[in-house]
């Protein structure tokens, strides 16, 4: 990873208040965001995503640590001197200005000549497909249109970095999907680094080049979407991203380059051994779509079908494992011609390929 381009967050901590009201919003957070990257901060409400974004924008001062942009510290600069623009969660459009005036604001602050400002505004209006709405006021726009204006206003200055704080959360599902594609297109076309905040894991997976999963002021894991999805390194990450089965287990005996894990009673599962397989009590994380259902007697986890939910493309089976080993969700694709092979109450075997198991230390 290049040290000198992109954003480098170095050991940032941020506390609010003091005494009994003290809140540690961020605790020793470090991360590198590469140039031209679509980087997402993902985490539950209150984990510190907005705080991290506001520190990068300059609205808050870090309690400790440093922030570098292209190798130069920007932590001491006021927000108006940082080549960073923000799309606020509430859009924060100026209500007393028209759409065109809103977009022109940052350009005027740079001291750009009137004619160039007008040109750039027209360019931005086309980019976000708002042609014809120049003279409207924000209050006369729909949520999606306001969102586009906020985007155009932040992009007009050609910042090095664009910060987006849950910009899509106020939109309905259909518009949200459209804007996701639009945002991705804008990011590719402009070549600007996007730092995107969301607590929607699906949004994070589909849009990001890389993402950081945060919890309680910490970054738990940073990686590409597939890496985070396939190889979560924390129970929290596994649980937060998509649906997953988490089974308590203890390591039994190694078996070649695999390890056998013991669940409850006589149930065991064979998993690929990592470089340093965790010993003692562990969690086995298995995606529902990576397991399959076979008739009882096959090599696998014994159990009985407890419920069946048909959801169009897939059918989701919930299996109660024998010996109190817990429940297991299996997601089976519905293929043409295939009939529902199992009914509620059927004894089944849940078959899990060893490479589908992610072993997490507790």
């Amino acid at each position, binding site marked *: 990873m290049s040290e000198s381009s992109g954003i480098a967050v170095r050991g940032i901590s941020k506390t609010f208040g003091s005494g009994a009201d003290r809140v540690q919003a961020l605790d020793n957070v470090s991360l590198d965001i590469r140039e031209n990257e679509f980087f997402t901060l993902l985490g539950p409400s209150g984990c510190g995503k907005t705080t991290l974004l506001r520190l990068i924008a300059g609205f808050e001062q870090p309690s400790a640590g440093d922030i570098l942009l292209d190798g130069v510290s920007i932590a001491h600069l006021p*927000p108006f001197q940082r080549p960073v623009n923000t799309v606020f969660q509430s859009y924060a459009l100026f*209500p007393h200005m028209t759409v065109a005036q809103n977009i022109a604001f940052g350009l005027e602050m740079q001291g750009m000549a009137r004619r160039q400002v007008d040109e750039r505004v027209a360019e931005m209006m086309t980019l976000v497909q708002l042609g014809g709405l120049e003279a409207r006021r924000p209050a006369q726009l729909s949520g999606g249109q306001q969102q586009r204006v906020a985007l155009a206003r932040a992009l007009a200055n050609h910042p090095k970095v664009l910060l987006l704080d849950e910009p899509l959360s106020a939109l309905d599902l259909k518009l949200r999907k459209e804007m996701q594609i639009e945002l991705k297109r804008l990011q590719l076309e402009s070549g600007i680094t996007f730092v995107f905040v969301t607590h929607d894991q699906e949004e994070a997976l589909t849009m990001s080049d890389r993402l950081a999963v945060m919890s309680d002021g910490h970054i738990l894991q940073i990686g590409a979407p597939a890496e985070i999805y396939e190889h979560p390194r924390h129970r929290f990450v596994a649980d937060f991203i998509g649906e997953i089965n988490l089974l308590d287990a203890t390591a039994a005996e190694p078996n070649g380059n695999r390890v056998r894990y013991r669940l409850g009673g006589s149930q065991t599962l064979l998993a690929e051994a990592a470089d340093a397989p965790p010993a003692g009590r562990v969690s086995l994380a298995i995606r529902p779509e990576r397991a399959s259902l076979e008739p009882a007697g096959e090599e696998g986890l014994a159990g009985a079908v407890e419920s069946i939910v048909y959801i169009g493309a897939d059918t989701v089976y919930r299996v109660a494992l024998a010996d109190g080993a817990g429940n297991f969700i299996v997601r089976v694709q519905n293929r043409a011609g295939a009939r529902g092979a199992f009914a509620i109450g059927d004894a089944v075997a849940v078959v899990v390929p060893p490479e589908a198991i992610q072993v997490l230390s507790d």
Partner: protein
Amino acid sequence: MPMGWFRRSKTHRQMALIGPAVLFLAVLMLIPIVLMGYVSFLERGEFGGVRWSDHTVDAYVAFLFERDFDGSLQLNTDYLQIFLRSFWLSIGTTVLTLLVGFPTAFYMALQPPRYRNLLIFLVTIPFWTNLLVRNYAWILLLRNGGLIDSALAWLGLTDAPISVLYTPFAVAIGLSYSYLPFMVLPIYASLEKLDFRLVEAAFDLGADRRRALARVIIPLAAPGIAAGCILVFIPSLGAYVTPELLGGGKSLMIGSLIQNQFGAARNWPFGAALAFALLGIVLLAIVIYLLRFRRSPGEMT
């Protein structure tokens, strides 16, 4: 019909609710104003009062013209000048009050909510003291050898008496002090509603503090600023006690002029006509305000 009954009873109830206010306004506002209007079109009585049977527009003519010996009308701008002087003094007072009031209101709006009510209370303190007491206090402060004068001399900042008392500036200071809450409270009300994220957005887009103030904060507080200016300007225009005491009665203001007509000059119709001219100016100011700031910026549809 139950609905019809409900509706009728509702209008009855509304009438009962607003009735006292309407009666109050009619008796205590409308009747005196109509009476004054009527008086302004009457002949003056020899020893004050009016001759109720003789109608004339002399009072309004006398505002701008003077009768020569031969009875021809000559333009006389004396009264107009008094109006203009009062007008400029009120403008000065309004500007001074705005310069003090806006930062005060801004500071208040930035405080944690639990301190704000205390600050509002503190700002209204001028209302709690008697008008005369306030003005005499300012005389003590402003006169040569008074508190401010001797403090400045002691600090070595001045070597001659400041000679502020009995000048229009002293009047403006006294009026500003009295009307400061009228300026601070409406501006505070509009700044308090201001979404501070808009200011952050301005910073984010490259505006420094000064330009964020000029381009975002002041425009959004404009309705409050305009309301405050009107609320200070109007009473300043007709102020009587403060110009008399702090201005030393040296230069006549509208308030004193009107008072004179009902008092020493015993010219009630002229006093009433002057009061009506003042009322006209005030109404004009309000109409301009309403036309300009009828809708707050966020609510335009």
